């Protein structure tokens, strides 16, 4: 038997494109349900229709009879198609009563297949469990091929995007998140009602659920139930009104006002934007460097390089790195991601709870750019340095996250301090008082932040390479150590003062240039005479 084209990657990834018939079918699917339908359900239905159409095409004589099912009742001379026998077509020649000690009354039909084939008998009028009795089967399912659901999962990226772009370009359909509905079936609203929604959120001083807004807007009477169509219609209209943003986590729609959202909820701070988009090759790293990728909590590190993570951990502790400390954010990595409320559609507003005071303040999960915003004032208030250990804890409420640091008795330690001298980044050891535990290899203090920011801008304008940045800061850091060695973590921290780079990119520069010489345990030296 030749392979069905709908069972191949080539069909779904290259040949498939939703046609007018598909759009008509989707239209009918939504019309019949009269409910918004998720794109996954739309896609599975469309894949099923394509698979069934191919089966029917491949056997034109399938049109000539009805599909055999054990539960069916069949008469003599009736033509049947047998899905489990490669869609063979046969004619019922006789029927008799079946006999089985467990199954009570049922029939047995004798079927002639032609071409001199001997007749075969099949069960009929049989209501017991049998795979062919399933009502939701597709022809492909019956044939032992990948089901429409399995095909969709296998080629979801391609199918999803093709259907999405087709529906998005068609004015007959409206959407909210990944739910689609028909524009003609949408509820009508007066424009003024959305001013009421604006005022209601403003007065609430926080986001409101779509149900709360529907009530505030007076769209339903006291005894009326809010329907899914009403929720969809309101959400669709709000999503297309630039005043409003959904800030709820997955599965929860919460409407808020864009004018009172911080810009960082939508636009990543420059300090977090990576220099270049080149991936790194972890295969280049030795046993000293590789574990550091997981130790340094940076969203630029590939998720696979974080090693085993417990997604159900009730708390995690991370090391605050330079870029995040500067802009009051935390990285979203495989380690931190499970603790924060997220949405694949929008930034999510939640409450940070100060682990020491119990005070709450707003936090934003920005999944699109892999960071959590809102810790600037908290870091300042607690005087947390770069390298401080920050602990994130779950609460019973997924929209409330405890943030804390590891307090210690205030003491003055010698820490490396960054400053700008003659337009170059320099470091020196200065005493600084800290009341928290921190990673000594990561800590970096700052003198004049305005000068450092100016240096950052100049480096960005000159598109200073990470290699060049390393060559500039290495002598500055190595002079602080009698052995003239610098740890890879310290180099990562130092580079990020003037250029944004994940640890993988920094390490890759270390291992690929002969001027950087590996010592033991992650320490490196620098020989400027070996520069490229």
């Amino acid at each position, binding site marked *: *038997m030749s392979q069905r084209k709908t069972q191949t990657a080539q069909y779904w990834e290259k040949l498939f494109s939703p046609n007018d018939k598909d759009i008509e079918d989707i239209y009918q699917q939504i019309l019949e349900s009269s409910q918004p339908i998720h794109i996954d359900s739309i896609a599975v239905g469309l894949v099923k229709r394509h698979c069934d159409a191919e089966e029917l095409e491949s056997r034109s004589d399938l049109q000539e009879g009805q599909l*055999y*099912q*054990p539960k069916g009742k069949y008469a003599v001379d009736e033509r049947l198609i*047998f899905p*489990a*026998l*490669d869609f*063979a077509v*046969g004619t019922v020649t006789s029927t008799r009563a*079946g*006999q*089985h*000690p467990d*199954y009570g009354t049922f029939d*047995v039909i004798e079927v002639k*297949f032609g071409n001199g*084939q001997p007749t*075969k*008998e*099949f*069960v009929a009028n*049989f209501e017991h469990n*049998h*795979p*062919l009795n399933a009502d939701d089967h597709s022809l492909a399912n019956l044939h*032992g091929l990948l089901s429409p659901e399995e095909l969709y999962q296998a080629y979801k990226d391609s199918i999803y995007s093709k259907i999405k772009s087709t529906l998005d370009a068609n004015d007959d359909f409206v959407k909210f998140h990944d739910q689609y509905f028909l524009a003609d079936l949408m509820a009508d609203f007066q424009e003024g009602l959305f001013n009421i929604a604006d005022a209601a959120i403003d007065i609430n001083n926080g986001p409101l659920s779509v149900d709360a807004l529907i009530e505030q807007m007076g769209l339903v009477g006291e005894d009326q139930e809010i329907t899914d169509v009403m929720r969809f219609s309101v959400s669709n209209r709000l999503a297309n009104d630039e005043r409003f943003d959904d800030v709820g986590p997955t599965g929860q729609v919460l409407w808020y006002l864009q004018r009172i959202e911080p810009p960082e909820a939508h636009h990543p701070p420059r300090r977090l934007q990576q220099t270049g988009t080149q991936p790194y090759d972890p295969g280049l790293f030795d046993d000293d460097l590789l574990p550091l990728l997981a130790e340094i909590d940076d969203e630029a590190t590939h998720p696979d390089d974080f090693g085993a993570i417990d997604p159900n951990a009730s708390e995690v502790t991370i090391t605050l790195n330079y870029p995040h400390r500067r802009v009051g954010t935390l990285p979203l990595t495989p380690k931190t991601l499970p603790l924060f409320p997220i949405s694949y559609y929008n930034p999510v507003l939640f409450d940070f709870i100060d682990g020491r005071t119990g005070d709450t303040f707003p936090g934003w999960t920005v999944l699109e750019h892999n960071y959590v915003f809102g810790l600037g004032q908290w870091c300042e208030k607690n005087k947390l340095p770069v390298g401080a250990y920050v602990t994130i804890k779950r609460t019973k409420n997924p929209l409330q996250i405890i943030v804390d640091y590891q307090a210690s008795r205030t003491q003055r330690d010698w820490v490396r301090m960054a400053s700008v001298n003659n337009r170059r980044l320099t470091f020196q050891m200065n005493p600084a008082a800290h009341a928290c535990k921190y990673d000594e290899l990561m800590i970096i203090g700052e003198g004049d932040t305005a000068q450092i920011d100016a240096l950052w801008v100049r480096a960005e304008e000159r598109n200073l390479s990470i290699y060049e940045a390393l060559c500039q800061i290495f002598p500055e850091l190595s002079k602080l150590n009698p052995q003239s060695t610098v740890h890879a973590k310290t180099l990562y921290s130092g580079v990020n003062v003037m250029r944004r780079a994940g640890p993988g990119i920094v390490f890759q520069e270390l291992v690929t240039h002969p001027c950087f010489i590996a010592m033991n345990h992650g320490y490196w030296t620098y020989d400027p005479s070996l520069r490229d």
Partner: protein
Amino acid sequence: MAKYIKPTLETKFHIDFSWWQKGGQNLRAFLQSHACESCQEFLENDQPQTFDWINPVTGEVFQIDMLWHIIHTHCSQDPTFLDKRIPLTSAIFRAFIITNNTPLTAVEVHEKVMKKTPELILNTIGRRQVYKGIKPVISGI
């Protein structure tokens, strides 16, 4: 004669009851060797009866000896039914009795009989010469 296609470890096998019918083989006599002692005694005085066995995949019906049903529902429940001392060929046949002749690969048969290797089981039932009606499942008629 159908073209012989060499089976693999992924090939599903079953007992083809039409093989027993076409060849005039005595299924009842063979099945008796798989019945437990209590059923053996009962069967000695019992008149042969048939029932409509229903293929769990295709819905096809074969009228076969009631002894199959008795062994499947009663004797196969005995923990010694797939005893290690039973020859491999008998154990393979019994694996199909246990599953009521649901198609199985050599690997799945091995998981049931826990003897030898899937490859050896495949060599045993995947040859041109059909052993006790155990044949690869063919999707067409």
